[in-house]
């Protein structure tokens, strides 16, 4: 990788200050950014590590939501988000154990890889992404693959996941990377059901409105009979065509409902 200056601030304010510098970039757990930099596909002048900021660590439960510090590793979420089992299970299924000990919730959401798991949890839960300057509703946050509403230098300090009545995440893994070829997060709240799909669309994570409507009326796998997402706009690559991914969206949604 190209060389860079490394700083590890202890507070959000210091991190924001460091990120205001020329070509500075935030570093979460580095599980995506460091491999990218090894390929020399990114060349920040300064890397600002967020892992030393105590305020951005940990999992807590308040006001009916699980609050995850932006720099909390997946393994910590898996172990401590017991109040929201579907979220804990999702975090416990990302990558592999060593990756889960470094990779962070904020890092995953800031990167918004179209095959990542966390975007499905955030969008499926109707989470609030809290930054150093504002709160962003998940529905307003995801803007297409690798694109989000975050501004330059803005840091995800916390993510608040409202706890649904029932929820489940089903991931069908891409055989090589073990990222989601298709992942579906289903969450049933008192006022309706949310269905978020990752891995499938060329536009990144999305909500499947027809399924949400059907499941809000009848939360059962049978309610999804006959519903399909169009193959058009689905990712097509050597691991699966758009039609295959579209088919898997239906299968995984049914399984998530059954398992919720």
């Amino acid at each position, binding site marked *: *990788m190209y060389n860079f200056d*490394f700083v590890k601030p202890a507070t959000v304010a210091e991190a924001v200050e460091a990120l205001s510098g020329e070509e500075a970039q935030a570093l979460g757990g*580095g599980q995506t950014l*460091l*491999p990218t930099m090894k390929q020399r596909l990114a060349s920040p002048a300064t890397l600002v*590590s967020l892992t030393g900021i105590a305020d951005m660590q940990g999992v807590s439960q308040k006001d009916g939501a699980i609050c995850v510090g932006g720099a909390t590793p997946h393994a910590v979420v898996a172990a401590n988000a017991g109040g929201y089992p579907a979220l804990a299970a999702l975090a416990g299924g990302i990558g592999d154990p*060593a*990756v889960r*000990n470094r990779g962070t919730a904020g890092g995953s959401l800031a990167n918004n890889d179209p095959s990542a798991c966390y975007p499905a949890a955030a969008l499926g839960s109707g989470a609030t992404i809290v930054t150093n300057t504002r709160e962003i509703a998940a529905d307003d946050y995801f803007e297409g693959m690798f694109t989000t509403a975050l501004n330059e230098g803005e840091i995800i300090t916390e993510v608040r996941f409202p706890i649904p009545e029932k929820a489940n995440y089903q991931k069908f893994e891409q055989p090589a*990377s073990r990222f989601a070829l298709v992942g579906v997060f289903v969450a049933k709240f008192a006022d309706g059901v949310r269905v978020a799909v990752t891995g499938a669309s060329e536009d990144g994570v999305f909500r499947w409105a027809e399924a949400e409507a059907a499941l809000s009326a009848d939360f059962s796998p049978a309610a999804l009979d006959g519903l399909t997402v169009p193959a058009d706009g689905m990712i097509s690559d050597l691991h699966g065509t758009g039609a295959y991914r579209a088919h898997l969206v239906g299968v995984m949604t049914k399984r998530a409902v059954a398992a919720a």
Partner: protein
Amino acid sequence: MTKVEMTVNGKSVSGDVEGRTLLVQFLRDGLGLTGTHVGCDTSQCGACVVHVNGVAVKSCTMLALEADGADVSTIEGQAAPDGTLNVIQQAFQDHHGLQCGFCTPGMVMSAAALLKDNPKPTEAEIRHYLEGNICRCTGYHNIVKAIMAASGQDVGAVAAE
């Protein structure tokens, strides 16, 4: 260059590194601890797994400076000072859980992390836990068997005896 200090296998160490120096590079090139291996550059093979502050990490996907002040343990620190293998290492030898040996340090370190959290894992739990450790030689049969044996389970009933 920036100075980095950490504890590795119980010893305080320090060295000068660049921002881009990976933990594995510091261990191998800086400290001469060449037991930790690099088998890929996409954070998947797990040959580089070490423990940092008690948890398994991929040392090829962590900056050396991120480990400043940390307690690091590597494959070189697993056997007793007199050379006696620890229970996992011994089980790998007893059950032929290694062939070329290249993935082995990462496998042993991952197995140690697993058994710390889950002292009696099932076959399925072991296989799932090893998601991030690739072995090309053994077909995993004897690795899984060795980890079961290291956890005190009877492996006599495992197929292919």
